[in-house]
């Protein structure tokens, strides 16, 4: 099997190169070659799928002759985690990267099979080039071939780190990868557009969906990582400004900017240089994320793999950046836009501001992340920046973004007159003002100025968005009648992109409220308590009710029951700390339980208004002393040395018999291991009687649930925006680029009509805009 896998991988490499060669040689209108090139990409995808299948079958069947399986799985690893263990390895991650890219490339080429004839060959070459790079890494770089074998095959593998055995941890890496990888598609088409000088919005229309998918995957991956950190690590936080987290956040932020500014290019033909630069930046950041984790140049809590592929990826980033910059500069004349922003009070102007904010945010994070290298360059010493520095800059930028999340949807494209602006801003401004007054009068929110500002801005944004839905539904109802909910569904499903985007905005506003509240008003206390003792934290009486113990073959667990009382209401939280044997080890000395990982099992009472979170650090020094004594006793027993305690005469006798007759050895060892586990049980249970103190980390986290809810709302919004439009336009022939252009203009006219009906555009504004749009539509029709 490994040799079959290697062969398929080599074949895949050749297929990627062949697809690129076919596309490039057929780019001057040789349809047969282009079709063949596309089918070769499908074949490439098939070959990589087979490679992934072979690796997964090896994992499922415990084939430890595969190095990757022996290193990352074991017989006892639960089935579900066996299948997911592939991407806990470096070679498996590379395989996943290439595989996801092959799927995305195939989908992109299928979607554009009858379109963009000039552009697709170049895009194919870029996509397959990147894919060939990653497959080539697996084949030619040292120690990253997933089909490396071990001879002789070990009887069991090392197993998967227990910290990683968490459902969200298993989907988190593939989500992030899919996000990173899918940004290759818009990047490839952008390069194609630059090379062929086809710089209108066609490449954007073809790949917008992929950019949105990439953005959604990346965002969901980030959210899962935060959730895992919060519930699984005994730390209680969800974000640490760690380089690897930042590496995933930066392409997400740039991707967000890109998704907004391409709309300006689609509708107004502006910001072309900016869009090209943004997608190059986003893709480079995605590669940088892959690189950072692999290189070890920055200190991170995330462990880095061996330093074998880092330099190659850095090389690829250099090629991408230098090549794309040169290309953009050489095309500057073609990228110049004919139009200017009409008014600062228009949606495109707000998009521009939002873009600047997002890029500034990315720049700050980039600077902070790479500061150790920068400071070493200038001062000779490595120095790093901690979370407070990041907070200083990112907080005001994020708050400004929330404001614009609210303003953007309220403004129409091109220009908005003072009268219509007043009409749409009235209610949101009033609600924001009421929120501010309420917070000042009834809350302690004003103690944290930034949080206060954010709450007020979020109130503004959420009201504005609600008003959009309300007015849209009302406008539709006045057109077709029916109930308000039906009108709401109707208007959303007919304008998925617009309302999907609004739903994303709602999600982000809710998420930021959660972040602001939980980071500004968190109570975080370390309590040292003995059983029966209690402490008062933030008006809550925290009582350590009793210690608990659990023992399994894999771990010893020292836990507790804690009662939290507030205003006469009591909740009970159970938390514990598990001490694992080293992964892959069964049996052995009792002390070996303290040689492997230790994990916190967090006690969490999640609520809509606040979470109560607790994790213990038990004092097990007495237990450990007894364990050492017991292990010494067993050694003495087995050794049968003079002066051995009388209880182990039987054991000593068994060992002597085993020494004389080797066939008795397994029986004797099994007997001893049974005795050891009995002893382990007894000693572990002694913890309950010890009554030793435990250090509890107790956190009261307000509104943290809003983060997860907000994230899911945003994800839902992305799905709404992605869902293919159905209804009357489905049959519309969108064959040629002119057709697509016509469709886009019709959509714009419909958008303007909706804005007018919803009261966002005054009659005069609408009359002007409608005339303009119709003139543009006529121009397009003339060309057709």
């Amino acid at each position, binding site marked *: 099997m490994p040799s079959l896998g290697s062969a398929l991988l080599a074949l895949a490499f050749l297929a990627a190169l062949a697809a690129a060669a076919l596309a490039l040689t057929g780019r001057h209108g040789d349809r047969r070659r282009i079709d063949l090139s596309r089918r070769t990409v499908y074949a490439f995808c098939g070959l990589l799928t087979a490679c992934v299948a072979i690796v997964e079958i090896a994992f499922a069947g415990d084939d430890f002759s595969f190095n990757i399986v022996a290193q990352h799985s074991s017989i006892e690893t639960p089935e579900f985690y066996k299948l997911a263990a592939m991407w*806990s390895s470096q070679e498996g*991650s590379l395989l996943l990267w290439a595989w996801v890219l092959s799927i995305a490339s195939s989908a992109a080429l299928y979607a554009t099979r009858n379109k963009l004839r000039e552009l697709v060959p170049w895009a194919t070459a870029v996509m397959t080039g990147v894919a060939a790079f990653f497959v080539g890494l697996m084949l030619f770089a040292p120690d990253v071939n997933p089909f490396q074998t071990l001879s002789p095959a070990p009887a069991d593998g*090392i197993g998967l780190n227990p910290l990683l055995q968490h459902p969200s941890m298993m989907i988190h*890496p593939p989500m992030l990868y899919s996000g990173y990888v899918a940004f290759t598609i818009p990047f490839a088409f952008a390069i194609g557009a630059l090379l062929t000088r086809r710089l209108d919005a066609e490449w954007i229309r073809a790949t917008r969906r992929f950019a949105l998918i990439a953005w959604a995957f990346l965002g969901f991956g980030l959210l899962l990582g935060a959730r895992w950190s919060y519930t699984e690590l005994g730390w209680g936080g969800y974000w640490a400004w760690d380089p690897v987290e930042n590496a995933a956040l930066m392409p997400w932020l740039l991707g967000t900017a890109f998704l907004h500014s391409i709309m300006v290019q689609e509708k107004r033909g502006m910001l072309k240089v900016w869009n090209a630069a943004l997608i190059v930046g986003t893709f480079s950041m995605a590669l940088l994320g892959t690189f950072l984790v692999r290189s070890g140049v920055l200190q*991170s809590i*995330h462990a880095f793999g061996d330093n074998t592929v880092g330099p190659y990826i850095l090389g690829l980033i250099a090629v991408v950046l230098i090549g794309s910059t040169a290309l953009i500069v050489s095309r500057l004349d073609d990228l110049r836009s004919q139009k200017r922003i009409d008014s600062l009070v228009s949606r495109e102007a707000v998009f521009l501001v939002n873009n600047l904010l997002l890029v500034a945010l990315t720049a700050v994070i980039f600077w902070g992340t790479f500061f150790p290298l920068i400071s070493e360059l200038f001062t000779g010493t490595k120095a*790093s*920046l901690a979370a407070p520095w990041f907070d200083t800059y990112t907080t005001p930028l994020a708050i400004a973004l929330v404001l614009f999340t609210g303003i953007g949807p309220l403004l129409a494209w091109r220009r908005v007159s003072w009268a219509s602006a007043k009409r749409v801003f009235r209610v949101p401004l009033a609600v924001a003002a009421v929120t501010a007054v309420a917070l000042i009068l009834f809350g302690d929110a004003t103690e944290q100025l930034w949080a206060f500002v954010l709450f007020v801005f979020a109130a503004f944004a959420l009201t504005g968005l609600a008003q959009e839905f309300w007015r849209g539904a009302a406008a539709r109802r006045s057109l077709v009648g029916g109930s308000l909910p039906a009108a709401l569904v109707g208007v959303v499903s007919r304008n998925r992109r617009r309302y999907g985007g609004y739903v994303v905005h709602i999600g982000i506003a809710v998420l930021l409220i959660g972040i602001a509240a939980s980071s500004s008003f968190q109570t975080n206390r370390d309590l040292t308590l003995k059983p029966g003792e209690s402490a008062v934290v933030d008006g809550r009486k925290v009582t350590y009710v009793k210690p608990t113990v659990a023992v399994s073959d894999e771990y010893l667990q020292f836990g507790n029951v804690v009662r939290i009382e507030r205003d006469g209401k009591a909740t009970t939280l159970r938390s514990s700390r598990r001490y694992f044997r080293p992964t892959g080890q069964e049996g052995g000395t009792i002390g070996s339980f303290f040689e492997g*990982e230790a*994990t916190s099992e967090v006690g969490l009472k999640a609520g809509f208004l606040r979470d109560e979170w607790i994790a213990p650090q038990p004092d097990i020094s007495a237990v450990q002393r007894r364990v050492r004594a017991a292990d010494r006793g067993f050694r003495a027993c087995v050794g049968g040395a003079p002066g051995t305690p009388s209880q182990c005469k039987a054991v000593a006798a068994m060992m002597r018999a085993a020494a004389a007759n080797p066939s008795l050895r397994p029986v004797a060892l099994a007997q001893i291991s049974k005795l050891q586990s009995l002893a382990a049980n007894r000693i572990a249970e002694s913890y309950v009687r010890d009554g030793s103190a435990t250090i509890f980390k107790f956190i009261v986290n307000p509104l943290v649930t809003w983060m997860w809810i907000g994230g899911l709302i945003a994800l839902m919004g992305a799905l709404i925006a992605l869902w293919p439009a159905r209804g009357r336009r489905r049959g519309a022939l969108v064959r040629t680029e002119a057709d697509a252009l016509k469709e886009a203009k019709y959509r714009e006219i419909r958008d303007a009509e909706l804005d007018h009906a919803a009261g966002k555009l005054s009659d005069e504004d609408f009359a002007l805009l409608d005339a303009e749009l119709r003139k543009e539509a006529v121009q397009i029709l003339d060309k057709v």
Partner: protein
Amino acid sequence: MDPQRKRKIRLVVALSVAVLLSVALIYTSFSASTEAKEPSQLLSAAPGTSYEMTGKVVKGSIHQRGAGIAFRVVDRDGRGESLPVTYTGTVPDPFRGGREIVLTGALRGGTFVGEPETLITKCPSKFTTKSDA
């Protein structure tokens, strides 16, 4: 005002804001940063100054002391003299002997006293998931 001029003014304003912000960014980053040092360098470092220490926990050196723990660290390559460290508060899950840690703190009487909430433990080398934020 003619639009050409208006645009130019806007551009100048935007650029000045950007320049001002970047100057602030650069200035504060150099003053807010903590110097990173390895244990062997810290043995002779100035007491009282805050450093970010990156080192490897010596196996078997971890002891409970009051509400905190005391342990020793060596350089990441495992060589050099070890440095005594104390830390108060709960420790991250992956923390144990042989692991690499990053800790901010200062030297007091020859012992590196870590600031609460700054202990970061790197995940073990087997933990090679690409991104596990």
